[in-house]
């Protein structure tokens, strides 16, 4: 079946199997920043943004993305031109193995797009669906706070 989406600002048509999960389609099409950590929607490493909302792409069928607007980590910034959030995550030591990092950064992006000056509770709630086993979350929390500060003063 054909699936029409706007992904990272580009209109594309993908061919997907009826039972295929969105994560599998994305990875097959080269969007490798979405990672597979559990396939049950618990870890958030496969997160992508669909119509402004954070979605675990392992949980939904590719067909459910038809007609929608998708953003993956690949559109947030690059190594040479990183987004403030990406740069700040690295500066704050919030990246260790980096497997959860794309999901964490997308979760942060969704939060900060909506809330310029989030409370600690809002930050924690926004990132609570993304598991990290390396950092203990301390530096991730700092990175979100610092990202918000920097984005406000831009």
């Amino acid at each position: 079946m054909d699936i029409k989406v706007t992904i990272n600002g580009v209109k594309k048509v993908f061919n997907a199997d009826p039972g295929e999960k969105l994560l599998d389609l994305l990875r097959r099409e080269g969007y490798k920043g979405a990672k597979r950590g559990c396939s049950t929607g618990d870890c958030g490493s496969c997160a992508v943004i669909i119509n402004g909302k954070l979605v675990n792409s392992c949980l939904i069928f590719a067909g459910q993305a038809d007609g929608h607007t998708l953003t993956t980590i690949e559109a947030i910034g690059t190594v040479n031109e990183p987004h403030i959030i990406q740069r700040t995550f690295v500066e704050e030591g919030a990246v260790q193995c980096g497997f959860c990092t794309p999901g964490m950064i997308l979760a942060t992006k969704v939060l900060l797009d909506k809330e310029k000056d989030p409370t600690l509770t809002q930050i924690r709630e926004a990132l609570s669906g993304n598991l990290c086993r390396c950092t203990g979350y301390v530096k991730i929390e700092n990175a979100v706070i610092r990202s918000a500060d920097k984005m406000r003063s831009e």
Partner: protein
Amino acid sequence: MFKEVNQSRLKVDGLSLAAGKALFVDDMDFRELLIVKFMKSPHAHAEILSIDTSAAEAFSGVHAVIHHGNTPRIPHTTAGQGHPEPSPYDTYMFDKKVRYVGDPVAAVAADTAEIALEAIKLIKVEYKELEAVLSIADASKPGVPVIHDEEDSFGIYDREKNLAGHVDVKVGDVEKALADSEFTVEYEIETHYSQHTPIEPHICISYLEEKGRLVLRTSTQVPFHVRRICAKVLEMPEKNIRVVKPRIGGGFGTKQEVYLEYYAGMITKLTGRPAKIELTREEEFISRTRHPMAVKVKLGANVDGMLNAVEMDVISNTGAYGSHALTVMFNAGSKCLPLYGAENVRFNGSTVYTNLPVAGAYRGYGATQGYACLEQAMDILAEKLKMCPVQLRKINHIKKDETSPIFAALGEGKEGVPQFIKSTALSEIIEWGEEGLNWSDTKPHTEKTGRFRRGKGMAIFMQGSGIPLVDMASASIKINDDGSFNLNVGATDLGTGSDTVLSQIAAEALETTTDNIIIYSSDTDMTPFDVGAYASSTTYISGGAVKVTGEEVLKQIRMVAADMLKCSQEEIELKNSIATSKKDGKTKTYGDIAKYALYINNQFQIGYIGSHISPVSPPPFMGVFTEIEVDTWTGKIEIIKYMCGVDCGTAINPKLAEGQVEGAVVNGLSYALTEGYLFNKKGKMMNGSFQDYKIYNIEDVQGLEIKLFSTFEPSGPFGAKSVSEIGINGPIPAIANALYNAVGVRAVRFPMKPEYILELMEK
């Protein structure tokens, strides 16, 4: 004093990871890739009487089915340790017997995962169920079934008693000292199953490169051990195998196991096609785990609180196979007992087989389990002595220039090496914690009332830095035309930041900046040897190798610079990638020097391969001071404050070092409070998902206060010791001590879930 180390340089692969660009195992596409799935044993202990794979083999899209009948039978260990591994050779690619629920019976390689899983349903296996051993207590009872009764395994201490390993080490006369002591304590606990849960599960892709050699692209902490063990199991020369470690999504010890790679390699060998094995999250939970241990500690002290005797008895459960069976058990003693300076010490350890999931290396590596008991016993002793528990530690803990006979008596599966403490900030850490938590205000649990009761607890710890005289690391450095350097290391960055830390050490040694170092790590064809990322060795041992290599390259730079600047080598000053002649102030950049050596005169490649081992394993130290609040209606423990001070020598990269401690502490907190395995009566693990096995998320973390205390370890690179493991040891004993201070009950089983705390309080 330092220019590049002891600085929080940005992680060298950080932006690539943050941009989703860094390549993990599964981030490369392979044509004709086969997906491999395991058929797993439904029984905890059974003989396979027959296996019929004909229908599965005939199934469209299936390309290979492997099982005990058509694969080599090579006894080996999956423990990714140095050669010869101190773990029993009791494992086979497939065996005629299964020893835990989940033991691989067969593997199917197919065009898709769905086809492989359907084909597995077509395999007919006839089992003869055997009685299963499902607890530490049952493992060595008379008449229990022998789990490893096969004839060709070896290195098992006493198979008839299901004993994988055993040791009994005595220093002085503990029995007499205990009898003579005015105060004694005996305390016993049992720690629980848990899993590392790296967010990237185990994964390996194997393929043939253009000359027909087998490449294993794998999520491993030990690429060189993967090559050696796979060569043995696949009956291939090592020269025909290349192991590549790309970025790794966390390991914490579970990727120190070599057990997926040879299945993938076997499929590729048979079919000529690339093959991928990726564990599901459920499979990850029964891949490798932490050894549960029954630990008993006896302490003897005089009225002044000085310890006369310390005895530790450990029975460790290695599950169905003896991966790290001996060494994890040894470490419960060797990493805990030297902390206190008693003259009479005994360590009596056994490791038993059970028909439960296989244990292996896990951050903390036995010390975590040992301290869970020892540091509670110390508090119990303090209470008997009517002494402040902080004071009891202060007078007994090992200090600078002191030694312990245990260092020499107990190593990793064999005797250790004698050593003296040359760096420690433990006394300062204890004072910091005492003050920060207002320890002098601590009241006993008998004075506490009401629904919510607060309690304070503390504990102290040490770990090690690599395995002395065993762990070897090497590094190669060459200069490029522009004065930058390629640094190739066998050391394995599994997310720890070692690529960054080693680049900083190279830059410091080479009198250049970290951004001039191009690091490439962990590829058995391209990088020199390193034992891998385990035993808290990378910064200390691999860092040592990088430092000596850098220093040798610097000598060559100095020599060429002297030739160019027409002065003696002693007159050359090297700083910030520039050579200056002290004679006339003339300068040459590293780029000038490189080009001169490569193109102009007496041409040669400036470069060197250096190696490093250490005769000692200097311990990092840690003190934990915590305040908790117990809800006496629900039994829930809430962390109010968790202060953790760590002495890791010179922190090469303070931000990354803090991150190691924070990660270990939070992992330890959820190990202490929420993580645990639920087994059914037949030994099947029932909660293999993040919904049913609770690891901490960001909302669970509160009250952390982590502080690094700087010391200078003379045997370490620029004063560094290890940092990555020690943090995980703290939560169980510190919280258990705080629990006692809050409500007067002692936790002997874990995790300390609300229902268990209520049960204790009702007793």
